[in-house]
């Protein structure tokens, strides 16, 4: 594979099972032990650096692979003034979820999943979110977007915290277009966020409002033929502090440690890829996304139709920062291309993933 036998190159060889024999010879004794005694996973990454076992998605009630693409576009109707109304229903529920094989976290969830439903609307739509608190603590939904103070979903302001058993409907216009999020803003904020109350809120641009970039806007608008060309994925970078010492023991994209490592995300080589990336990681100042073997364009907050960062392979986000990544593997050699946090600590604690590029 390469003349340059650096440690990193060797590691990669081993990881991708290509010219792995060099690697095998180097740490042969360890590899032997692993092959003979390990619980074998249906993954090709015989590195040992991985969680053991499988998460029971059925018990959790959600599958991290489905979460990548299961947009919730709400119930659509038309208002008297001709505008589109989208109504979403969200319930806060206490639920124990398995975030790494055999490791259970007493989560607070929106609709029984972490991250909560990925709400998707079109710029200018009227949004109504019917929220019911079925949990054991007061909660809110605080949307990142433009709305009135009353609808801000913050403890002590406007409607304030919604007590267990109570309901409230948040209502506002979908703007600005972009890749946004929502989360609980009840106090204590840190606990309410890291327990699992957050989700994606994507507002697609209305092509008619952006005549200069109508083509780009159409490619972003769910349901258009231009959009269906793209392979779109939603990823929330999160972490879990399972022993409540204000440090995360598990990191992941979409909650489940190593989920996309053990079962790579398959992408078609010749269709472009768009990732809606959101960081909600608690306790750590930043999280990041690094793509192997390729570069991408980045649209910070997704609120522009031209890239804010061009040709980068790593991007960092503070908490609640988010953006859109666009890239393509067209013409690439098929195979497995990693992506992960480039804080090695997070990567080794679960936020490690792979795209399987298929010709």
């Amino acid at each position, binding site marked *: 594979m390469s003349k340059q036998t650096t440690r990193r190159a060797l590691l990669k060889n081993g990881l991708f099972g290509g010219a792995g024999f060099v690697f095998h010879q180097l*740490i042969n*004794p*360890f*590899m*032997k*032990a*692993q092959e003979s*005694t*390990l*619980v074998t*996973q249906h993954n090709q990454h015989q590195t*040992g*650096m*991985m*969680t*053991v076992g499988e998460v029971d998605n059925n018990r959790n009630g959600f599958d991290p692979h489905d979460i990548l693409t299961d947009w919730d576009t709400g119930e659509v109707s038309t208002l008297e003034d001709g505008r589109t109304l989208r109504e979403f229903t969200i319930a806060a529920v206490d639920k124990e979820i398995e975030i*790494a*094989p*055999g*490791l*259970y*976290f007493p989560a607070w969830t929106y609709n029984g999943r972490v991250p909560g439903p990925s709400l998707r609307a079109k710029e200018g739509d009227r949004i109504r979110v019917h929220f019911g608190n079925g949990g054991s603590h007061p909660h809110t939904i605080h949307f990142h977007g433009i709305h009135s103070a009353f609808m801000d979903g913050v403890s002590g302001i406007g409607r304030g915290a919604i007590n267990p058993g109570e309901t409230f409907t948040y209502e506002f216009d979908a703007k600005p277009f972009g890749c946004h999020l929502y989360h609980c803003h009840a106090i204590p904020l840190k606990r309410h966020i890291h327990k699992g109350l957050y989700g994606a809120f994507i507002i697609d641009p209305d092509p008619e409002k952006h005549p200069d970039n109508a083509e780009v806007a159409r490619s972003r608008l769910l349901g258009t033929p231009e959009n269906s060309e793209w392979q779109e994925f939603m990823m929330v970078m999160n972490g879990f502090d*399972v*022993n409540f010492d204000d440090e995360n*023991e598990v990191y992941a994209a979409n909650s489940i*440690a*190593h989920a996309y490592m053990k079962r790579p995300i398959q992408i078609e080589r010749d269709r472009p890829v768009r990732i809606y990336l959101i960081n909600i990681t608690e306790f750590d100042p930043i999280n990041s996304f690094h793509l192997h073997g390729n570069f991408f364009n980045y649209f910070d907050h997704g609120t522009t139709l031209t890239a804010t960062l061009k040709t980068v392979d790593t991007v960092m986000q503070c908490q609640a920062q988010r953006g859109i990544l666009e890239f393509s593997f067209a013409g690439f050699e098929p195979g497995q291309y990693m992506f992960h946090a480039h804080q090695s*600590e997070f990567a*080794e*604690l*679960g936020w490690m993933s792979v795209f399987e590029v298929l010709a």
Partner: protein
Amino acid sequence: MSSGSLRKGRGNAWLWAGVPLVLLALLIGLFLVTDPLKPLGVSAPPIEKLTVERVTLDDEGIHLQVRADGSEPVSIAQIQIDGAYWMFSQTPPGELGRLQTARIDIPYAWVQDETHHLTLLSKTGVPFEHEIAVAVPTPKFSLSRLLAFALLGIYVGVVPVTLGLLFYPYLKTLGQRGLQFLLALTLGLLAFLLIDTLQEGLELAAGATAAFQGGSLVWLAAGLSFLILIVVGRREGHAPEDLALATYLALGIGLHNLGEGLAIGAAFGIGEAALGSFLVIGFTLHNITEGIGIAAPLTKRKTSLLTFIGLASLAGLPAVIGTWTGAFAFSPQWAALFLGVGAGAILQVIVEVGAYLARTSRQSQGNWLTLSNLVGFSMGLAIMYFTAFFVNI
């Protein structure tokens, strides 16, 4: 009283021996079924505990022996090494019941001479930390290693005791006061060993699974072995003297040396001590006084070479057993138990040597609280304290 009523009385007695036990069983059953503590709101998460009892490092990675130790069974969900999740296999797999042990194998390329931090996460996310302070290959059981550890034990135990015993011809030339001084010195030495053994035992006990109550184990073993040895030693109605006293001295010192050997073997085994000639010479110096102590009660009789060999073996060879056990089969609760027994044995000889000193003093000048005895006692303590500077591992 007729024989009938006697039988009836016995029947009643048996009945009353049984009734409390039956009631106890009923109460426990009732407690488990009705959960009477419910109003107290006792619904806290189960208390899980896990102790890493033994770590083995070899070409295939890291191997642990763990023991579950809480009120509830523990299941090990994931393991982090230095903050990264690693695949592992557990035998037997599944939940670990109270006090159950399991072997964990982690294929991990550990780094020689560096530190590794292990975190075992239970299914509820409770972390159990274990530090491998300095990663070195765990000594594997082989003939050459066995001999090497035996040699180490001989240097620590047999050699110094034998050298001390070689003072015997000189000790015989000392007069009554000289002998008393020597016995006082022995008492000082024994006082040091008692403190040292108890401390070592309690330290090891802290590393044992909590349910074994390591601390209590040390104290109870010490107390019980002390009583047994006192009773056995005085079974003929008087305190042991001469050869008997020397034998008990050798036994007590031998058990202490067993503990010392355990500590040395275990320390080398987990890479916490560097095997230097300095350390070995230190132990030889430190323990030489032990031989003098054993020889002291023998000055008034003729003693054969064979007896001396026997005494040297009794006092010194346990160090070999200690280094073997420490290096190849260490477990903190057993080590704590042995050291407790050792402390009890040392306490017994302190009492007996003290009694012997008091007796000989009475015979000569009537009072054992002399300045010379005080100086002897203090010297015994001081010699042990300062030579211990060489051997702190």
